[in-house]
């Protein structure tokens, strides 16, 4: 968390750029692997439909939940959930989540969503931030080349926010 504290004083846009170049902001490398695997399962890259990998979803999530003003509970829920997914994966399959195949990931996540309160809340939150990464203005680091907007034929409003006038900079 020391890195998060160090980043807190930086403009949000700068930190967005920073996360593209660095490998550590909030998650450990292992945690990031799990988050990425879950996101790609929830929003896979399909023919004609962008997936988590196409919208910079993992970096987006990491930056979004470390931004000033974000409820610390949200941050903690996301981070703690990663550990619980790992625990559930080990318990059921004796391997880490990111080592599972699709046939194993699907029933595990479905079990967590349907049978556990925390799993349902956690997956709901991860999905929410996937939608942000998919459909927010690209200036925030997701929605690469407006791929989400183009996919859903969404007409953005105007004027669009410049990098120095986005949340965290206003």
């Amino acid at each position, binding site marked *: 968390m020391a890195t998060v504290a160090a980043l807190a004083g930086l403009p949000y846009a700068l930190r967005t750029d920073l996360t593209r170049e660095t490998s550590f902001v909030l998650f450990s490398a292992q945690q990031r692997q799990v988050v990425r695997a879950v996101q790609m399962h929830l*929003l*896979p890259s399909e023919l004609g439909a962008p997936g988590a990998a196409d919208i910079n979803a993992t970096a987006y999530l990491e930056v979004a939940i470390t931004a000033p003003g974000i409820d610390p509970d949200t941050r903690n829920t996301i981070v703690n959930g990663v550990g619980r997914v790992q625990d559930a994966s080990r318990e059921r399959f004796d391997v880490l989540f990111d080592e599972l195949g699709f046939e194993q990931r699907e029933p595990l996540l479905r079990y967590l969503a349907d049978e556990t309160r925390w799993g349902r809340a956690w997956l709901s939150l991860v999905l*929410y931030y996937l939608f942000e990464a998919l459909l927010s203005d690209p200036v925030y680091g997701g929605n690469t080349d407006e791929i989400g907007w183009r996919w859903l034929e969404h*007409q953005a409003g105007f004027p669009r926010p*410049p990098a120095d006038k*986005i949340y965290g900079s206003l």
Partner: protein
Amino acid sequence: MSMDCDVCVIGSGAGGGPVALTLAEAGYSVVVLEKGPWFTEQDFFKDEIACCRRNTYSRNLQEEFHVVEEYANKNGWSARPTYDSSLDFWNGNMVGGSSNLMSGFFHRLKPRDFRLLSEFGAIDGANIADWPIDYEELEPYYAKVEHAVGISGRVVNHPQQEPRSTPEFPFRPTAEHPVASWFDETCQRENLHSIPVARAILPHAVNGRGGCQYSGYCGSYGCSSGAKGSSRAALLNRAVASGNCEIRANSHVYRLDSDAKGRVVAATYYDENGSTELVHAEVFVVACQAVETSRLLLLSQGPMHPNGLANKHGQVGKNLLFSAGGGGTGTFLYESLGPEKAAALNVRGPFVNRALQNWYYVNDEKMGRMKGGTLEFLFRHPNPIGQANRQKWASDRLLWGVPLQRKLKSYFTAARYLRFEVFCDWLPNDDCKVSLDERFKDKWDSPVARVKIGNHPHNLKTSRYLGNKGYQVLKAMGADSASWGVSSKPPVNLMAGGCRFGNDPKLSVLDPNCRAHDVENLYVTDGSFMPTGGSVPYTWTIYANAFRVADQILGELGGSRQAPGSGLEFP
């Protein structure tokens, strides 16, 4: 004691702006203390994250929050801080207040709204009261707002049309979406009166404000062109230009100090650095939006006001109002329309601008004679993140993967969604009020407001009646599917009451001129004064009443110090 200014206005929204403008242009020195920052058109962008997904325009709930008390079950009520719930009672904390973020659907109250008790009688469990003024007294100020704020629209004859002193709005209507004509045709067929809705939006540039850019994003967003008639864009910029008005942003007033005679002598506030500052003035005007206005008065105890300012009879905070209602949505599939109509439906930018008031008053066999309300028609808000997030559920099961992607694609590209919103009276009652919480304090160590949000059953009865009417209209328009619902939850962007005005000091906080009964130099000019709210959005009425009270204050101070006509006039 030396005065810093003639008039100190606390809060800069629709209740504060008219007072600041009127008195500044009349030559009096005015200081406006606003808790939030001072954004301008250069800070407003169509950015869903900044606007609607974060707290850019509200407060950090970990630091400043409310305690909301809701009905739990027959055994009682439960109270939770808003940092621990899905509710957020902050709304537009910035110079200009929530008027920066309004949709600007502008309606006047009807003459009968001023005498709801006399016209429709008492209802058990509701504290309905007639207003101490009538429509005729407010009408000149409704007319004044049309020019001062800039209201665009078209006057048509219909059974609920209010009396007007001027024949037309000063600005032509904003551009209308093709679906408005479909709506008109349906209404003609169904023998309903389609009402073109007036908007506090300029259709073209005037006096330094731009015209509407029709970006497709309006409500909840700050206006990038200045077309929206916020208190900031329309009034406060002019007040500052007069040279007599100073706006102090990021200034959180936490107490009004009163002397041994009971007069308010100073507003005490924290500036943006957290330092305590004071403003001394002859007259103080509170307009912090209903909940925070009541809270500030309750926090301001003094030698003559041991229970808070203007609270001699324990009325401050009582009879808080919201707008009761609900809404519905019609789904119009492009594939059900011919190519021409589908293309017309897909047009983005112009407004629907239509409402129905056929059931503003109801008198039928099933419901009897009662007050009804307004149905406002509009497209579903275009924010894509919010819309996408609602697609992740299939019944109560989370959806993901290809099924979610298919649902998203279909939702966003196969249809457009026309909505209606129901506006009806939120009946004042003993279970809807503001008090100081005895346990929780904000980061300034002040007790937070405890908001009890009791909803009278009659609200739901009226809402259901109107919701079903709106549903029938959507079906008559040819919606492929439609749904509607009502809510007992208060819409936090539509709040009023808590300091009702009246003739009886034991039953009201303010006199008919919105001066506190027991504090001779204290006025309240936001929506707090309203004993009942009518069945329309409140903003036009708040603006009009604040201009009316401003004239009263001006008279008390001795009239204008300026030569007539020296103020900026709107065409």
